[in-house]
């Protein structure tokens, strides 16, 4: 302390008007008293700097002219796109509106949703099992899981689809019995078992499982080892440890990628058109092959895909928010809460209880 004060005072003596040492003196009054005479000019200087009173002034934020230029350019672009969409007759919006809710299109949409829901759910369940196998201490379980992911991630989904659909060529009959004997409990023609729907679900599910296994495994790995240790030390059983302690924390890492996958799957279902399965995309194709209105019908399909994705995104927001409990200090407001808060603070008339009661009394 004392040595610091001396240095400051010395430098002040050598070059009093220099701003840096002067402000240092102002910060530590002990330096001024320590070496009174030498430090005085610096102290006066500091007093002069302190004086002016700005309390009557108004604050003006910095202006950003380029930001305005950028905003105007982008706004013009947006208007131009919107204008062309609205006025170019070749988009045939009337045709789009007409087909948008046509019975066959809605049927296709239902099939798309059905495929997504079934293969999404089955895929994630199988993926969860594969992830646990991959994390298991058993080398066999581990390598089977690894091989599964390896194979299904390395072959094109299109090939997998066609392979499942043509399984009857490889195996004429599928049967359940005791191997190496003639005992059969159950036997069926492969072609009757593997319908278009079954091939589609099988292909999408297995492919989805391979990807979701990795996503779930990544989520589980992201949870701190100490959490498992603490749970084990408290005597909490293994199953409960996974479901109550690890998974809820893993969900934070799993959810964003999982929703990516499900949204991908919604559109990925369009690949089953190779099986002539009449989901949304195939239906639309059939229609425009007949009517030749290619673009309007593709737009119909696109708008439906956008709608599904939008709904899923809303789900994603709320589910992620649910699982962020405890991971953030305070949960951010939902858009709805924000809107309510906005109207509560900006509303011209305050419609709270007290006001209503007072109004009633006045009457």
């Amino acid at each position, binding site marked *: 302390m004392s040595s610091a004060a001396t240095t400051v005072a010395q430098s002040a003596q050598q070059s009093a008007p220099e701003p840096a040492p002067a402000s240092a003196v102002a910060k530590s009054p002990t330096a001024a008293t320590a070496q009174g005479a030498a430090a005085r000019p610096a102290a006066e200087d500091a007093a002069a700097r302190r004086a002016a009173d700005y309390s009557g002034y108004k604050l003006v934020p910095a202006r950003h002219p380029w930001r305005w230029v950028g905003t105007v350019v982008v706004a013009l672009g947006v208007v131009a796109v919107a204008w062309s969409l609205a006025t170019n007759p070749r988009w045939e919006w009337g045709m789009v509106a007409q087909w948008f809710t046509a019975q066959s299109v809605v049927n296709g949409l239902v099939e798309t949703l059905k495929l997504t829901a079934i293969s999404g759910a089955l895929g994630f369940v199988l993926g969860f099992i594969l992830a646990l196998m991959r994390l298991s201490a058993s080398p066999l379980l581990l390598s089977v899981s690894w091989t599964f992911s390896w194979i299904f991630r390395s072959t094109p989904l299109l090939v997998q689809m066609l392979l499942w659909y043509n399984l009857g060529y490889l195996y004429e009959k599928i049967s359940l019995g005791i191997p190496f004997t003639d005992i059969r409990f159950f036997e069926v023609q492969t072609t009757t078992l593997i319908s278009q729907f079954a091939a589609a679900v099988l292909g999408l599910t297995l492919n989805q499982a391979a990807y979701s296994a990795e996503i779930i495994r990544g989520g589980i790995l992201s949870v701190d080892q100490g959490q498992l240790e603490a749970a084990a030390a*408290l005597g909490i*059983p293994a199953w409960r440890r996974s479901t109550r302690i690890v998974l809820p924390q893993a969900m934070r890492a799993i959810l964003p990628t999982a929703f990516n996958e499900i949204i991908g799957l919604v559109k990925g279902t369009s690949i089953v058109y190779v099986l002539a399965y009449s989901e949304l995309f195939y239906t639309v194709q059939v229609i425009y092959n007949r009517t030749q209105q290619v673009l309007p019908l593709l737009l119909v399909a696109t708008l439906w895909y956008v709608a599904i994705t939008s709904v899923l995104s809303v789900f994603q927001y709320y589910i992620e928010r649910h699982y962020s409990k405890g991971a953030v200090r305070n949960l951010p407001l939902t858009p709805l809460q924000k809107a309510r808060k906005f109207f509560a603070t900006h509303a011209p008339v305050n419609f709270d209880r007290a006001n209503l009661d007072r109004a009633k009394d006045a009457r």
Partner: protein
Amino acid sequence: MSTAATRGHVEITNVRKSFGGTEVLKGVSLTVPPGGVAVIVGPSGSGKSTLLRTINHLEKVDGGYITIDGQLVGYQVRGNKLHELREKDILKQRTDIGMVFQNFNLFPHLTALENVTEAPVVALHRNKAEARKRALELLDRVGLKDRADAYPRQLSGGQQQRVAIARALALDPKILLFDEPTSALDPELVNEVLDVIRELATSGTTLIIVTHEMGFARDVADTVVFMDEGQIVEQGSPQEIFANPREPRTRSFFSKVIEPAFNI
């Protein structure tokens, strides 16, 4: 020291443990009587934490054995062999042994109260309302009753560690293990945790504490155990060990960790 404690007698006999090629415990034996307070000190890597973790079978021993009130931890005798218990039975044994970790390891997605009630409900099958009532008592005991609904991230380090102590106490353990409970805390938060442990030291629960807080060790311990390189070098009452260490290794360790502190 204790109120007629009859449970929580810990007997560690010739315990060995290796990680890879390194032997971190080279035949450690230690007895802690019911209600006793043993404080284990020593340099980093001396095997203190590993020894502590063998006591509730979080770490499997490679040799030797540990008993609590005469019952083997993690094993059972069959013929002339010790067979490792099934997971279920190990978990049951662990409910008698509370553990407090250096990094708290509170469950971040559960509130303080849920952290404390989880194990009694799941592991001891206590009824929820009862567990909740008891948890609130425990949170009150560690001075955090008003933060029962806070999530761990909303609490300071010292508060989190006190919740972790309440969580360990919720199973009414015979023994409490503390693995450097204040090492992750800011210096100003250390005392609020040590005060809680000090209070526990007089409650009749057996405490085994690994710590670097020498002043605290001197206050609270019946027995101070000095470990180095996987062995117990010396043990005795705090007076003996701190004022009058016999072994040169002990002397040189304390000269490094204690004297600089008194020079400030």
